[in-house]
């Protein structure tokens, strides 16, 4: 009996303080919705796939994606547009114009950031530097050691984007280039462990830079491969990364994959296949009513 009375007291006290506390929290934090649009492995597919294409008939194309993004920007206040690498290689546009058209159009479309995929090195490091220096958007790479490399000054280890009252930290995780890229095409790039470097940057962004949310643009590939660190490994073994927008494995994730991270918190992984036939869209609500957002989630996922 005594126990029950104590319990009731505790509950009522807790509720009182909770209500007080909650109301003060709400006044500090208003609800913000961020719409994240993403692509990966577009591979120079400027035009839609031909009408007789077996898998993607008349799908994709930069001018369509531009229209779609424009429309979403009209409807939503806070939109991010991101790419997870392998912008280059795959159509004659790249063979003849060396990526300048891809970079120009992505700038025009208002990409906020991209990371570097292995095919970005296909014309060599020098040519990649030339293209990056023309870009209207930042290239982010967190886990490559770039001492003595021109890419060090042309790329960023992370980037912070403010949307309303929300600070979003963006990091870039690059794949091990050995075996994928001809050694002549890259010099003075060391691949560092993306779990360690990713976590280091993400915790710095959250703790020191006050970021609310960390997005990793990753070209590591989605799932398990022996001897390789991939998106699922990064998700499981970190605590500060919230969302991984992946690439390289050309997987179509119709809905983002939820993974429990090291702190038992849900992390999501998205990937949009390849060739620009799909645009990934992820909506995040900050400080929304828990029940409501969870219901919305169930309806969507």
């Amino acid at each position, binding site marked *: 009996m005594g126990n029950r009375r104590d319990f009731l007291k505790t509950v009522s006290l807790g509720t009182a303080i909770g209500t*007080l506390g909650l109301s003060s929290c709400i006044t500090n934090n208003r609800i913000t919705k961020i719409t994240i649009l993403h692509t990966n492995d577009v591979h120079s597919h400027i035009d839609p796939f031909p009408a007789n294409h077996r898998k993607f008939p008349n799908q994709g194309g930069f001018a369509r994606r531009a229209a779609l993004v424009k429309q979403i920007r009209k409807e939503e206040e806070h939109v991010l547009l991101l790419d997870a690498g392998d912008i280059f290689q795959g159509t004659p546009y790249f063979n003849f114009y060396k990526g300048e058209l891809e970079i120009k159009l992505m700038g025009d479309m208002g990409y906020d950031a991209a990371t570097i995929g292995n095919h970005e090195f296909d014309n060599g490091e020098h040519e990649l530097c030339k293209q990056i220096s023309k870009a209207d958007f930042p290239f982010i790479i967190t886990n490559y050691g770039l001492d003595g490399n021109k890419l060090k000054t042309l790329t960023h280890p992370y980037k912070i984007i403010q949307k309303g009252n929300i600070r979003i930290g963006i990091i870039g995780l690059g794949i091990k280039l050995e075996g994928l890229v001809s050694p002549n095409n890259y010099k003075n790039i060391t691949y560092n462990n993306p779990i360690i470097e990713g976590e280091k940057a993400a915790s710095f962004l959250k703790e020191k830079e006050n970021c609310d949310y960390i997005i990793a643009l990753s070209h590591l590939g989605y799932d398990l491969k022996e001897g390789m660190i991939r998106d699922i490994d990064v998700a499981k073994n970190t605590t500060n990364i919230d969302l991984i927008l992946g690439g390289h494995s050309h997987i*179509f994730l119709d809905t983002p994959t939820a993974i429990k991270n090291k702190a038992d918190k849900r992390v999501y992984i998205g990937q949009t296949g390849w060739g620009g036939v799909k645009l990934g869209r992820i909506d995040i609500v900050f400080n929304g009513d828990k029940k409501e957002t969870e219901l919305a989630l169930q309806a969507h996922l």
Partner: protein
Amino acid sequence: MNKHIILLFSIILLCGCKQNNEATLVSGKLITTDHLIANDTSMQRYIQPYKVDIDKKMDRIIGHSTRELTSYFPESPLSNFMSDIIQDRAKKYLEQNKADSLQLISLMNIKGIRTALPKGAITIRHIFEIMPFENEIVILTLSGKNIQKLFEHISTTNGEGISGATITISNNTLSKLRIGGKEIDTSGNYYLATSDYLANGGDFFTMITSPLHSESIGCKIREAIIEHIEELNQNQQKVVYSTDGRIKVIK
């Protein structure tokens, strides 16, 4: 005790307030960019001159194929077709340079073949799609031991595009190897024609990255394919290709 509880709750709540904004993913999906979405006209206008230029170069018909050639492990019509073209081109080069003293084999990595060759008219564009990379053909001189290792490696990865040799793979190991119909001479040397990408360490073919000699023949793989199909076309021939059992897999 109550004081303690109040303190505890206050700390928790204070921390809760001080913490970052709470995020919830409410929806995630893929939107197909299909014909229902109209082009952004100003972007399309910007692309147009590039497109006209590319189309002019790409839409030229160079030949015909009797059926679709696809590429897959362990052995496929398209990987055979491409490795045979490399073999043919390297052989011609060696003969012209009177250097055809060693047995020649060729290697084309299946992962480097990016799509299928369609049935019917073949344009330059199709070849760019199959082989978008600017890889050049190189001829490596390798010891018999390294050639043996190469085929052992190919057995663990369940096949590749090969020419000039036949192999049998059982349980991912090499159980039989014939080069030009003969057993391998592990004390001798061989020529291997392949792409500079693989020769330089692409795809982890580590046994070929330190050859006794290496020579670039000054021809891109894509150029070799285009010229081969054009030659067939000039002789009123179509591309006819299938698997021929050069890689056998026993389970």
